[in-house]
């Protein structure tokens, strides 16, 4: 090679040149002209003598260097380098003088040069070594271009290339039926073409830089090569078709789990992209193929596997397709490809997936699978379906919990558990989606109010159990947590008044019997209710606590009082809870004839109380009183915790051995039904202090009772449980319902609400028909109420002259201001 030689030449010429250029700046114009002229002259000479050893334009230093490093086969890079290094042309100030006559070209110059180039190009295409130095070839092109023969040269090169490319592609026709082999042949062909075109472009770089650039509508040599390849590829449509089919077949095989040559795929697809036929020739059939493939697969898998497996499979598939895009498909394909896969694998099966697997996943708390489902559904915008499935799942499951009357006992805890599991799923699987949160809330609200007042009652009862003493094993924090959870359910209740009534009743019992586990917990519950429903809701409950505190003070001062010290017979430790009538539940008054001793106690206390608080009336709530008795049985001393009624009955047996039902009734004056229950608790319950003759569960009129001489019990302190009213909680429930329309001075909340609502409506309307009034009332009143009750309230308001019936039409009410 002549490289080192040439390098020195160009180097020196360059240094000369630059130094002279520097000089030119400081020296006179004439001087610079001279040196510049020299340079040009030199150049000119070279073009005249193409046979000379190559001498370069002084500005091509960088090209030289590139040539050296990259070898002469990388003209593209050289091209770039050269562009950068083009020196500023001081042309404006140059005056070029022609010293000799114009040199002429040899007449066969073009033909000769072309022949050389042609043989070189041929050699390149045939992959044969060519005798001619690449450097010389480059110079040849350079010369042709300088002599404005570029156009011709371009056409000749194009023709030459066309012949070869056409031949190359034709050779592929009818080649190997094996698709992989065929594909690698195509790849080989393409790679060769690329290499060859690069080489040709390298040689004819000057052509690309000058003629192609300056002439409009002429492709660069590279593009020309591509265009020719494209042209023949499509004209030998068998080749193109076979290639595309081969590619599709290979991808399908990969989808089916075979290992395929991904590099081959990558190269061929790059080819399609380079040829600009990727979208038309490959992507379209590819997407169709994908669609078909996944349609079939989706159908098959949906039938074969269960939902979690199917979802896993879909996830894997989508991941694979994504990989595919990274590895060999064009980037632009990613979106449509993933969309196609999603559509076929997911979108079409949304409802089937939900029908088949959602309940199972929810029941099994399979948060991971549910999360997968959520993420996948999110991709195809199917969250709404998922949300609906969730809603109907909650309703269905909850319906089972709420409507099963036999499981009333566990309803609240089941609901709490259910809610907790839903919350976990919501947090872990549904990414705390707000819409889903609302769905859960809505569904729960629906559930809780399915059965009118029953859930409210059960929630109150549940709280009672939690707040009642003897609930061992739960720490304060746990209790607090439970209360908070229950409060969530409470929020869903529409009939909050019903809840209040039941809660109040239970609270009263806890407070009066001293059964509350912790006053702190009670107060914390009250404050929770207060934040939830406002102070209006809890005022009375708080009043109950106040009464209890106040009662303690009263008892203290009673003990210290002169009345107690002087008049009170000793022996009985008495404490009294004084209740403010309006705060507490209303208790039906119960008559009882107390032993004289107790009457004395009561009278003394009453005297004391009324002296302290004038203007009041004190009423004894004997049904709520309870006592502790010391009893001496033949087989041991016992302490009995009993109600006042039980006490009164038992005291009778101090003076008599055997008493008939009639006797007891006459002596105590306790109301018949109540007495029967009292006797039942003493003689037929777990703890039998009395014996009934004859034996039996029910107390009959002719029964008689004797003191149980043989009474034994393992413990010293014994509680004699009372038989609950009506025997079950359903009775209490009924009792509450019946109490709504009853005349009650303290006014249970619903009554006041109803009255207030009626007056409010009538005040705005002045005149309204019965039907319209009732309709409007149902809209305004948030708690369930029977029309008959409303009617009674209207009657009552008419009595109190808030309203009157129209004189002409009794169906119409007038408001009386």
């Amino acid at each position, binding site marked *: 090679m002549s490289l080192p030689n040439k390098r020195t030449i160009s180097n020196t010429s360059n240094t000369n040149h630059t130094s002279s250029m520097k000089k030119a700046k400081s020296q006179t114009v004439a001087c610079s002209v001279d040196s510049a002229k020299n340079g040009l002259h030199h150049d000119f000479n070279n073009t005249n003598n193409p046979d000379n050893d190559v001498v370069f334009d002084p500005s091509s230093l960088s090209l030289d260097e590139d040539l050296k490093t990259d070898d002469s086969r990388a003209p593209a890079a050289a091209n770039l380098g050269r562009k950068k290094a083009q020196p500023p042309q001081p042309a404006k100030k140059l005056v070029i003088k022609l010293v000799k006559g114009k040199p002429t070209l040899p007449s066969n110059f073009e033909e000769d040069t072309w022949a050389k180039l042609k043989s070189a190009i041929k050699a390149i295409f045939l992959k044969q070594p060519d005798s001619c130095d690449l450097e010389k070839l480059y110079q040849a092109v350079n010369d042709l271009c300088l002599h404005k023969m570029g156009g011709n040269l371009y056409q000749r090169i194009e023709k030459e290339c066309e012949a070869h490319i056409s031949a190359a592609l034709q050779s592929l026709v009818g080649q190997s039926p094996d698709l992989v082999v065929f594909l690698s042949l195509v790849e080989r062909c393409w790679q060769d073409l690329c290499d060859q075109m690069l080489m040709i472009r390298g040689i004819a770089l000057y052509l690309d830089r000058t003629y192609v650039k300056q002439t409009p509508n002429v492709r660069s040599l590279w593009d020309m090569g591509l265009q020719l390849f494209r042209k023949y590829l499509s004209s030998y449509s068998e080749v193109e078709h076979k290639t595309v089919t081969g590619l599709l077949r290979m991808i399908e095989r990969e989808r089916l789990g075979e290992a395929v040559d991904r590099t081959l795929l990558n190269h061929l697809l790059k080819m399609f992209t380079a040829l600009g036929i990727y979208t038309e020739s490959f992507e379209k059939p590819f997407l169709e193929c994908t669609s078909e493939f996944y349609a079939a697969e989706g159908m098959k898998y949906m039938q074969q596997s269960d939902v979690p497996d199917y979802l896993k499979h879909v996830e894997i598939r989508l991941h694979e397709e994504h990989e595919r895009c990274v590895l060999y498909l064009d980037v632009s394909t990613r979106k449509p490809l993933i969309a196609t896969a999603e559509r076929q694998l997911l979108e079409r099966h949304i409802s089937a997936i939900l029908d088949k697997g959602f309940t199972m996943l929810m029941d099994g708390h399979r948060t991971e699978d549910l999360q997968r489902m959520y993420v996948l559904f999110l991709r195809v915008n199917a969250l709404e379906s998922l949300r609906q499935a969730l809603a109907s799942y909650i309703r269905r499951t909850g319906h089972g919990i709420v409507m099963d009357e036999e499981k009333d006992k566990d309803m609240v805890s089941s609901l709490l558990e259910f809610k907790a599991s839903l919350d976990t799923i919501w947090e872990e699987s549904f990414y705390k989606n707000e819409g889903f949160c609302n769905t859960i809330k809505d569904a729960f609200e629906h559930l809780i109010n399915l059965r009118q007042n029953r859930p409210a009652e059960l929630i109150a009862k549940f709280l009672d159990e939690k707040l009642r003493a003897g609930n061992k094993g739960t720490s304060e924090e746990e209790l607090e947590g439970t209360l908070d959870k229950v409060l969530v359910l409470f929020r869903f209740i529409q009939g909050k008044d019903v809840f209040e009534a039941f809660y109040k009743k239970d609270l009263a019992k806890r407070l009066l019997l001293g059964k509350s586990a912790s006053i702190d917990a009670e107060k914390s519950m009250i404050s929770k209710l207060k934040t939830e429903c406002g102070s209006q809701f809890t005022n009375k409950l708080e009043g109950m606590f106040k009464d209890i505190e106040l009662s303690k003070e009263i008892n203290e001062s009673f003990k210290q009082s002169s009345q107690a010290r002087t008049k009170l017979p000793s022996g009985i430790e*008495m404490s009294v809870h004084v209740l403010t009538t*309006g705060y507490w539940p209303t208790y039906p008054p119960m008559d009882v004839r107390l032993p004289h001793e107790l009457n004395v106690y009561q009278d003394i206390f009453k005297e004391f109380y009324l002296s302290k608080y004038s203007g009041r009336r004190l009423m004894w709530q004997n049904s709520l009183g309870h006592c502790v008795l010391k009893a001496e049985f033949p087989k041991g001393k016992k302490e009995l915790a009993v109600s006042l009624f039980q*006490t009164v009955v038992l005291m009778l047996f101090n003076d008599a051995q055997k008493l008939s039902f009639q006797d007891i009734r006459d002596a105590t004056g306790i109301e018949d039904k109540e007495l029967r229950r009292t006797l039942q608790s003493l003689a037929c319950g777990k703890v039998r202090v009395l014996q009934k003759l004859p034996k039996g569960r029910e107390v009959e009129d002719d029964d008689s009772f004797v003191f149980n001489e043989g009474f034994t019990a393992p413990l010293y302190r014994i509680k004699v449980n009372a038989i609950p009213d009506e025997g079950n909680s359903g009775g209490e429930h009924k009792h509450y319902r019946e109490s709504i329309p009853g005349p009650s*001075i303290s006014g249970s909340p619903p009554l006041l609400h109803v009255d207030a609502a009626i007056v409010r409506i009538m005040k705005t309307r002045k005149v309204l028909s019965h039907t319209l009034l009732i309709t409007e009332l149902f809209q305004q009143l948030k708690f369930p109420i029977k029309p008959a009750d409303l009617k009674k309230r209207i009657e009552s308001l008419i009595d109190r002259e808030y309203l009157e019936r129209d004189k002409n039409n009794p169906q119409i009410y007038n408001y009386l201001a």
Partner: protein
Amino acid sequence: MILFRWHAVASWTWDAQDETCGICRMAFDGCCPDCKLPGDDCPLIWGACNHAFHLHCILKWVNSQTPQAHCPMCRREWQFKG
């Protein structure tokens, strides 16, 4: 059989002749219209004439009648009892 500890329960109400307050017409066992809670928070007050009203009600009345207020029920001069 000896009774030695007794928790009794009693409830109190206002001891007035009427059921309702003569001013606000609300039950004495309820409260005056300005209050939310009956009982100690909304006490009754008796006049020298032995008519009872919600304290809040009669105070409003007395303050509106200058210089001398009369019992809304019997028109006698209003004096707080006791």
